[in-house]
């Protein structure tokens, strides 16, 4: 009979599913990574806490008899009111960006797509910059994120209608509208910053654009957390149609998917998630581009397996990146977007070279 299987070079089977680590093991390892990153993230800071104490405080808060309070109330305040909300938000943002990146790459059927590509984050930047430059403060701490979200939403609507013509949404048009909208909105944000003439405003705007989670309070955590949790759940339910998108437009239609309607709905969902995330974190690049790749290498392209894994990996990665951003040049804090770009850029190039070597 045929000799197809035996005559192949061994590299094919080595790179295939057989050589992969079992899925549950990957998930368990990622869960451990998230826990470790979060523990370290809570322990490290201007006041350094022992890891055991971090867990004792958390357990005590969860259920008082679990741990005897041997720490000062100040330390508990630091953990519960300063570090935990920040770490939580970090995890939510990292998970959200990664999940959105994976869904978006399926949506435009291009593994090089990034959440920042849709123009949504540039819209958020314009919203945030307007608030900073014109000193708007209508509703206190919520003003900035709300304005950023409004900007993101307007960009979403704009890109959506630019990309959709005659009930059809093609991937090329989506990417082009996203990129063009992003360029125009970045220009608007840049103009506003340059003409503000106030170096302090310029600095805060620049910091916002490079991303950061300093000064996170509990109030700011809930909405993005709910959005990411809910959105990820919906995407998990949609993972079969997401898989079909990888097969191509015609094939997906032949397999029962209403491609154009699904793309439109998926774009709206992902853009809303991104808008909610960027509104609290600023634009953090490369997370949504890089981590879906790593996960596909680990567990394959099936979204049913990929989405949970990428959410965990994203959370662990961003918590670790935030930790690095806080501790590299203490007491200064580097914007986290700089760190993710510094690691993401080389990764991207490596990926490209690896692809070329195939």
């Amino acid at each position: 009979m045929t000799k197809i299987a035996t005559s192949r070079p061994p590299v094919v089977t080595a790179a295939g599913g057989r050589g992969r680590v079992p899925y549950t093991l990957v998930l368990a390892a990622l869960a451990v990574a998230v826990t470790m990153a979060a523990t370290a993230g809570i322990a490290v800071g201007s006041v350094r806490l022992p890891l055991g104490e971090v867990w004792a405080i958390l357990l005590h808060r969860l259920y008082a008899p679990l741990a005897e309070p041997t720490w000062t109330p100040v330390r508990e305040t630091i953990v519960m009111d300063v570090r935990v909300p920040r770490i939580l938000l970090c995890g939510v943002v990292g998970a959200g960006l990664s999940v959105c990146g994976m869904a978006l790459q399926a949506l435009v059927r291009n593994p090089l797509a990034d959440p920042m590509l849709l123009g949504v984050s540039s819209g958020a930047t314009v919203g945030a910059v307007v608030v900073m430059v014109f000193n708007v403060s209508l509703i206190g701490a919520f003003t900035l994120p709300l304005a950023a979200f409004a900007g993101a939403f307007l960009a979403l609507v704009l890109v959506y209608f630019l990309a959709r013509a005659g009930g059809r949404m093609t991937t090329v048009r989506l990417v082009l509208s996203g990129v063009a909208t992003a360029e125009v909105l970045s220009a608007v944000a840049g103009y506003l910053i340059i003409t503000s003439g106030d170096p302090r405003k310029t600095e805060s705007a620049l910091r916002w654009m490079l991303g950061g989670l300093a000064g996170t309070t509990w109030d700011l955590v809930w909405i993005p957390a709910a959005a990411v949790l809910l959105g990820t759940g919906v995407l998990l339910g949609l993972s079969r149609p997401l898989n079909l998108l990888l097969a191509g437009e015609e094939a997906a239609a032949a397999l029962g998917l209403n491609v154009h309607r699904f793309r439109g709905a998926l774009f709206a969902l992902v853009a809303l998630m991104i808008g909610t995330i960027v509104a609290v974190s600023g634009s953090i690049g490369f997370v949504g581009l890089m981590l879906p790749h790593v996960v596909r290498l680990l567990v394959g392209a099936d979204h049913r397996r990929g989405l949970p894994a990428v959410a965990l990996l994203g959370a662990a990665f961003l918590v670790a990146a935030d930790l690095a951003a806080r501790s590299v040049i203490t007491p200064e804090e580097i914007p986290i977007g700089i760190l993710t770009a510094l690691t993401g850029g080389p990764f991207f190039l490596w990926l490209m070279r690896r692809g070329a070597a195939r």
Partner: protein
Amino acid sequence: MTAADGPAVLRADNVGVVVDGRALVWNVSLEVAPGEVVALVGPNGAGKSTLLRTFYRALRPTSGRVTLDGEDVWRMTGRRLARRLAAVLQEAPGEFELTAYDVAAMGRTPCKRAFQGDDSEDRRIVMGALGTLDVAGLAHAPFDRLSGGEKQRVLIARALAQRTGTMVLDEPTNHLDLRHQLDALRLVRRLGVTAVVALHDLNLAAAFCDRICVMDAGRLVAAGPPAQVLTADLLAEVYRVDAEVGPHPHTGVPQISVLPGDLT
């Protein structure tokens, strides 16, 4: 697991597709009986693929309608149609790290609800389909790195995994070597499904199909049993080639030899 639907009657009623004022398909009517295998042949740009696209809901006809057992395919949901009609297309997934198994397993999607996992039955069907197409050994190989013929066979396996009673195949023998060309068409016959197959190879069409429909410039210009349709006159008119047609000495199937000279 839903039982596979039986072979259906596939009908096109005066189907027309006009894009930007150009009629790619014009007034095509065609009925395929349950279990019948019909070849769709014609020169490049004759409208074969366009017509097929209206069958599997990738392109809505601008006039006329396509029905499956009397039901308009454009009035049912895509999912419902995909459980009754499978398509083998030219389009192949790329770039992502999909394995051959992943690609073939997409064929199970129309039978699944959201959040419903694959059970052992699904895996058996998918592996069975890959085995039928002689590519089970490549199940865990990256789809991207398969040869053209292997990819084509995985795509046929995907359609097979849909377990439908009707199939539409757009150049399924593309990239396949001689043996696998025969295997693929023999398979379609053996399945007993209603099938419409776009083919370039007229000899294959004559050998494997009950009827041959010839398209030219968007119209259906001839339809009937191979021996009636495939004539030197028709080949001269539609393909503009000089050919000799005669029954094969052993099988009796019409056989076409294209002559190298220019048609005068």
